């Protein structure tokens, strides 16, 4: 009896072992896919976060740039007028025309006040 029983046990595969092995295989596949999916998702998220930050920085810089260009154009206009006045002032001095020179200086001073305000705006930009 004992010998027959042993013979049957050696030949049979336990259904629990089959289930366990199947579970192991399925688990291994699911684990690989799941971990891979999580890693890819986290990487994608990081890349998207970097992209979102870059867009946000770009928007902020574009706003600053717009303000700087607006202030800069006014500043340049003032400086162009001031540049022309400087030349006129030098000519007036060379001609010993002090009244004309003083008039030019007054106009330049008024432009300098405007320029200083615009300069403050420009410097205040981050």
């Amino acid at each position, binding site marked *: 009896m004992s010998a027959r029983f042993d013979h049957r046990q050696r030949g049979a595969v336990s259904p629990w072992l089959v289930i366990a092995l199947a579970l192991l295989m399925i688990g291994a596949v699911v684990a690989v896919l*799941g971990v891979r999916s999580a890693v890819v998702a986290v990487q994608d998220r990081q890349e998207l976060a970097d992209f979102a930050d870059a867009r946000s920085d770009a*928007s902020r810089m574009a706003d600053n740039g*717009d303000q700087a260009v607006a202030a800069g154009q006014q500043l340049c206009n003032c400086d162009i007028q001031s540049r022309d006045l400087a030349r006129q002032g030098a000519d007036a001095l060379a001609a010993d025309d002090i009244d004309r020179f003083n008039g030019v200086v007054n106009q330049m001073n008024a432009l300098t006040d405007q320029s200083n305000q615009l300069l403050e705006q420009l410097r205040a930009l981050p």
Partner: protein
Amino acid sequence: VAIGIIGVVLLAIGVIGFVVSGAVAGDYEAEEKLLDAKGVEAEQPTAELNAATDRVKAALDAFRDSVDAGVSAHNRFTQATDPRDCSLLPNNLLCQGPTAEEIQNSVFPAADAYAAAVDAEQNALAQLGQALAALKAARQ
């Protein structure tokens, strides 16, 4: 039993992985749609945007520097036209503006230097405008 437990643990790890990937997927939906519409990966537009932003920053700094240079040139011109220091003279009426020689040697060169500084300022502003246009194009 041990094999089965390992299988269940692996299964659980896999499920957690899928749950995590599902949870983080929706955080940047707007950006994802934008990239999908462009048909590009995030890395390329991110690098382009960062480069364009850096160019605008550099152009803005260069413009500020050119404005500062303009202010210095303006001040040098003003100093060149100032009357000579006559504080040691007994009568302020003796104070006079620059001599003809000083006008030729200092005032006119200072006016020219100021004109050059204003030109440089305009040039820097034009470059800022170009960098800004490139940034806006990259942002779209």
